[in-house]
């Protein structure tokens, strides 16, 4: 096990560096930084570092970055973890924006695809099966109050009376 040392200006509880292994570990709150954001930031650093992710305890994520090139100065590790943290924040924010706008994005995308497909031809309309029930409503939820409880017309009332007599 290599000796862990803190990096200046960064909370010791979050980041620890192992100079002998030229690696740095950063522990993250999974609520602040969702896994998808950590994936995104890690992916950006794959060409510069060896990146290992772990979940040391529930609700926490740990990213360990090992520099591919030799690192002599602690300042280089500090810069590495700082850039990673910035990228992580950017990815987390973009993830949040995507989540917030997901419905709008999907709606616009569907409309764009539907528009690109063009209007249906007469053959398409001729082949369309209109017999399929669009809505199955066994509890009558889609009925209006008048349809369900309103006063019946004389013809309807006569019809119901006839059905009751027949069943009796």
């Amino acid at each position, binding site marked *: 096990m290599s000796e862990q040392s803190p990096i200046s200006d960064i909370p010791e509880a979050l980041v620890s560096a192992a100079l002998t292994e030229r690696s740095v570990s950063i522990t993250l709150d999974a609520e602040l930084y969702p*896994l*998808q954001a950590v*994936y*995104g930031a*890690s*992916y950006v650093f*794959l060409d510069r570092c*060896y*990146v*290992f*992710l*772990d*979940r040391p305890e529930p609700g926490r*994520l740990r990213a360990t970055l*090992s520099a*591919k090139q030799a690192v002599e100065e602690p300042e280089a590790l500090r810069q590495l973890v700082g850039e990673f943290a910035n990228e992580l924040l950017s990815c987390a924010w973009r993830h949040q924006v995507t989540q917030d706008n997901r419905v709008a994005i999907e709606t616009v995308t569907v409309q764009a695809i539907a528009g690109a497909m063009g209007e249906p031809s007469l053959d398409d309309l001729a082949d369309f099966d209109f017999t399929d029930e669009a809505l199955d409503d066994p509890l009558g939820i889609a009925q209006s109050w008048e349809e369900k409880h309103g006063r019946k017309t004389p013809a309807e009332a006569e019809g119901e009376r006839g059905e009751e007599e027949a069943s009796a």
Partner: protein
Amino acid sequence: MTTTATELRFHREVYSGEAIDQAVKTWSNFAEFELSESDQHWIVKLTPKHEPAAARIIGEFGNYVLGLTVDRGGVQ
């Protein structure tokens, strides 16, 4: 030439098992692999075939698994 084996533990909630399988196939020319699993981890025991490049093989293998996991959209 024999090299020492290194055990990598990939957390199941972070790494995709399919990604590990695919990475092991791809890297089988560079290292020997033994796969096992625990409740929380996929365990890969890796023995590089080229001692001078051992650290690089281990690191790049880890990156490759992570890249495949991200490409798959994470753990399903």
